[in-house]
């Protein structure tokens, strides 16, 4: 019976999936199961009779709590490090208790341990992943907040745009009344001494109307409606309009075109007309003495893009103003709103093109527009 029981116990001892060993009161190993062999690398022959410090490391080597009266038994779930016979360190989780005989005398101790090295590694990775994840979430949150901020700004701008459009339109009604009133005064009074004043009213009404047009165009720039645009026809129309606009200017326009007359570019005709007109207006206004010459050149560059440049020999732009020319509402003109080149820049950008402005004070200005031939 006794023999049977002890054989059973031996079987359990060997099969239990934890390292299990016993020591005597001098901490010499008295038994050692298979799992203990696997975890430590030490065979039963190598350890029996040896002190358990042969494989223990921190903190068990420095201080073994099993035989201390101060520490409550059994000891459970205590983490410590062991050193395998190949020198590798493993982290184990151990339970330990005293072994007493029938007289309650301490005759040794039993300890079981499990290798938790891999689990610890996994936990560390998890911990690091958690930190990484948190960092990523934080980063994404920041990006999202920035996007919301940007969206709000755009919305504010579009609200301002809508409001601007309403105000601009509403201003036309009083302007219409002023213009008609001036006309009525002129006809009724027939007094030449008033003529210059009435002419000034008329002139200023038209200026105000032009400002409204520009503000509206700027607040309303939409994605271009692409079509095959014959740029030469557009350009000729714009030149004709400019000549009418500046009747007292004696400006000669020279065209040097290296692109075929019938060539076209996929573009929004109305928008490009706006661009050409604005640049021509600026060129006309750059001549202080109201006479001079404008040279328009066109060519295809190496990338096959359409290039058109407008060169005037006018007053030029100060270097510090040059980089601000496309800023909305930036102007050096007495009667300008500062939207002309801002509109041009926006439109050219919407066409995936590029606008370059080069200028020297007293020498003149060249505006070059590069447009892809097709979208």
């Amino acid at each position: 019976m006794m023999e049977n029981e002890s054989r059973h116990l031996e079987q359990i001892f060997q099969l239990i999936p934890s390292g299990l060993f016993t020591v005597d009161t001098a901490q010499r190993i008295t038994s050692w199961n298979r799992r203990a062999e696997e975890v430590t690398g030490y065979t039963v022959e190598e350890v029996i009779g040896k002190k358990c410090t042969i494989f223990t490391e921190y903190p068990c080597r420095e201080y073994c709590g099993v035989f201390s009266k101060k520490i409550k038994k059994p000891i459970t779930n205590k983490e410590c490090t062991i050193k395998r016979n190949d020198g590798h360190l493993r982290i184990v989780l151990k339970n330990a208790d005293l072994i007493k005989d029938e007289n309650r005398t301490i005759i040794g101790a039993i300890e079981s341990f499990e290798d938790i090295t891999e689990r610890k590694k996994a936990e560390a990775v998890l911990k690091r992943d958690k930190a990484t994840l948190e960092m990523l979430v934080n980063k994404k949150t920041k990006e999202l907040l920035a996007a919301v901020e940007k969206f709000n700004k755009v919305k504010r701008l579009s609200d301002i745009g809508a409001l601007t459009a309403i105000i601009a339109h509403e201003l036309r009604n009083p302007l219409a009344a002023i213009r008609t009133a001036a006309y009525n005064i002129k006809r009724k009074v027939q007094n030449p001494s008033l003529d210059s004043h009435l002419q000034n009213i008329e002139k200023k009404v038209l200026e105000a109307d032009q400002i409204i047009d520009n503000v509206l165009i700027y607040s309303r720039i939409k994605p271009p409606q692409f079509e095959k645009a014959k740029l030469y026809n557009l350009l000729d129309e714009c030149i004709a309009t400019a000549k009418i606009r500046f009747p007292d200017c004696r400006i000669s326009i020279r065209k040097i075109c290296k692109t075929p007359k019938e060539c076209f570019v996929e573009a929004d005709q109305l928008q490009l007309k706006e661009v050409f007109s604005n640049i021509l207006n600026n060129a006309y206004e750059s001549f202080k003495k109201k006479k001079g010459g404008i040279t328009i050149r066109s060519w295809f560059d190496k990338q096959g893009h359409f290039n058109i440049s407008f060169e005037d020999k006018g007053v030029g732009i100060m270097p510090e103003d040059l980089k601000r020319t496309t800023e909305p509402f930036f102007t050096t003109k007495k009667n300008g709103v500062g939207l002309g080149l801002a509109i041009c820049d926006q439109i050219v950008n919407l066409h995936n093109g590029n606008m370059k402005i080069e200028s020297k004070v007293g020498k003149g200005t060249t505006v070059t527009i590069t447009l892809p031939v097709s979208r």
Partner: protein
Amino acid sequence: MVSRKIMVVDDDKEFLEELKEMLIFSGYEVTGINDSTIALKVARVVKPDVILLDLRMRSTSGFEIANGLKSLIETSNIPVIAMTGYYTLKEHSWLINFCGIKRCLKKPFNPLDIIAEIEKVMETA
């Protein structure tokens, strides 16, 4: 020569006054309507030769009036010239055509232009 009857509908009182004055000075017989809600009724009574119509008004809009004029037998043939500082011809051409508006002038227009327009629509009417 019988003077032509022009009806002007605009909710801007001062503009209406000035335009009326200008048209009378140019030899037209003018009825000015400041309250757009009565425009249709007045048009049926007065039967003008041409109607000058502001499009954006606080109560009944010019589009509504033009559409109303089109649907009444006694007013359907009166040519309508729209005056607007608000709607663009390009963007609203379908609406303008739909309401039977013949011409459209952008405020602030040259007073001489409106006379030219009036004469033009009456020639073709």
